[in-house]
């Protein structure tokens, strides 16, 4: 039997081995610990823990607010990236650097700052309060914090793709008779789409796990503004390790399912686009 090389590029065994060991150490082993701790519970205990009314309310808030935050970021982040890439204006570098602040800032500082600004006596809160809009200590505050921490993800994933895209493409579309709307939806958006979805996914994933910044602005009222990570801390505070990890297991499961779904969606749209464009070619 002759040995057949698995690829032309050498070093597959070494790099793959390293990848597996690295992923196991950093991701797999710590996460499997979550499942082992949860295994201390019987199925019935697990079920009653994760379906308690307070826990369900917290899941709804955590996933709901994260989806809203990530969606806001998908739209506004795209806009910010567009402005940064396509226009030249004084202070552009400064604005560009500011985008990363939510990354660098300790989340607790972000939470305290947001609460200070949006509470009823804060700079912004004092104008919203007479209108009946309460941000701090309500679910709206949770959305605000999750939007804040998610902003860089969309901007930073979309920006490089936008930079690669040539403005001539849009000009060509226009000169070939495309309306502005057609240019945006058929020429500009399609190549941006994968980056946008990735940014959205990252912002969402980060938001689901966020604790530090939310805790100060949420108000933490049971059934109303408690996020799921807070309930995990609550369980830990009672030395209920298994209960805490049970909530975490459900969060892991739901997050993984959502991320997988988004990835599949992206895969299908890419396939479909490729088929469409081939069909277009054949038709033409």
């Amino acid at each position: 039997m002759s040995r057949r090389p698995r690829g032309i590029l050498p070093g597959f065994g070494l790099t793959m081995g390293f990848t597996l060991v690295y992923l196991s150490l950093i991701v797999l082993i710590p996460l499997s610990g979550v499942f082992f701790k949860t295994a201390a519970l019987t199925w019935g205990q697990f079920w009653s823990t994760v379906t308690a009314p307070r826990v369900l309310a917290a899941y709804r808030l955590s996933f709901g607010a994260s989806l809203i935050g990530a969606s806001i970021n998908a739209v506004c982040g795209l806009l910010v990236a567009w402005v940064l890439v396509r226009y030249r204006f004084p202070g552009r570098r400064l604005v560009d650097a500011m985008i990363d602040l939510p990354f660098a800032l300790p989340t607790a500082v972000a939470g305290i700052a947001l609460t200070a600004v949006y509470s009823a006596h804060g700079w912004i809160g004092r104008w919203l309060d007479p209108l009946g809009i309460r941000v701090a200590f309500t679910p709206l505050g949770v959305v605000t914090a999750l939007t804040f921490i998610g902003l860089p993800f969309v901007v930073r994933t979309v920006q490089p793709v936008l930079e690669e895209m040539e403005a001539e493409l849009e000009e060509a579309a226009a000169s070939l008779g495309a309306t502005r709307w057609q240019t945006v939806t058929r020429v500009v958006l399609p190549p941006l789409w994968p980056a946008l979805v990735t940014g959205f996914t990252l912002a969402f994933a980060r938001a689901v796990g966020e604790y530090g910044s939310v805790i100060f602005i949420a108000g933490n009222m049971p059934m109303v503004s408690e996020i799921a990570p807070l309930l995990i801390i609550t369980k830990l505070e009672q030395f209920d390790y298994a209960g805490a990890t049970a909530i975490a297991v459900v969060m892991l499961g739901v997050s993984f399912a959502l991320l997988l779904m988004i990835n599949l969606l992206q895969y299908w749209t890419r396939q479909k686009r490729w088929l469409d464009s081939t069909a277009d070619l054949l038709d033409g």
Partner: protein
Amino acid sequence: MFVVFAEFAHANEVALLNVSYDPTRELYQDFNAAFAKYWAAKTGDTVTVRQSHGGSGNQARAVIDGLEADVVTLALAYDIDAISDKAGLLPPNWQSRLPNHSAPYTSTIVFLVRKGNPKGIKDWDDLVKPGVSVITPNPKTSGGARWNYLAAWGYALKTYGNDEKKAREFVGRLYKNVPVLDSGARGATTTFVERGIGDVLLAWENEAFLAVKELGPDKVEIVAPSVSILAEPPVAVVDKVADRHQTRAVAQAYLAYLYSPEGQEIAARHYYRPRLESVAAKYAGFFPNVKLFTVDEMFGGWRRAQRTHFEDGGIFDQIYLPK
């Protein structure tokens, strides 16, 4: 060989780790310096005490998970019980090994109100009135907040002749007046002081004194209720760790020194109520006169209080569940 040599040279270096909770940072900075001097004079050894501070429950969890604390000085006995139950690092009867339930200094729960006390808050009854906004952290995440909750509950029991149902209703009404449940005592203080939210903050007496000192009496003032709880933050040697480090003797001396006149004086200077008569007499005029009840006499100990009130599905949870 080393030990012999060290004994001979009489300059042993000993290190202790004291794992404590948040507001004791300054207290133990002073106390550690005093103890080092006392210990050097007594034995010739140099002792360095390292401090670790954080939320009481977090700190207990860190010790359970392997933080090598020679002594723990936490906010409530329940947290040290947990170290005993979950990790077996000290015997279950730890609390009877030192005088006064192992609590060398005490405190209580008082009200911090805004300058001039605009809402005229004098006692617990005023906290359940409509339109009064009360700031207290979540008792499920904050050890300090559990004292607040139990203080209110104990007041209600005393006022309504031990009627559990009335007490539950009273505490329920009080928490209806709480607009924000911060996760820890520091967060609640920030909400009250910096955010300007709420009319009254439930606080440990020592923290209330600190707040008045730092913010100035022109911002906030202390109101002492007629009845409150005797907060007993306990201390203990973590046997297994101290034995491994061979520091048991010095760790025991460290805690015993807390009960000495010098230790009591330092505690009093940091606004904790001293146990020792002589020091207590000296500070008698300083601490407001409040009738105090203990967790043991009113709730049958921390384990029981925890089970009845704060465990999942306990009375605190029921207050918030839709009926």
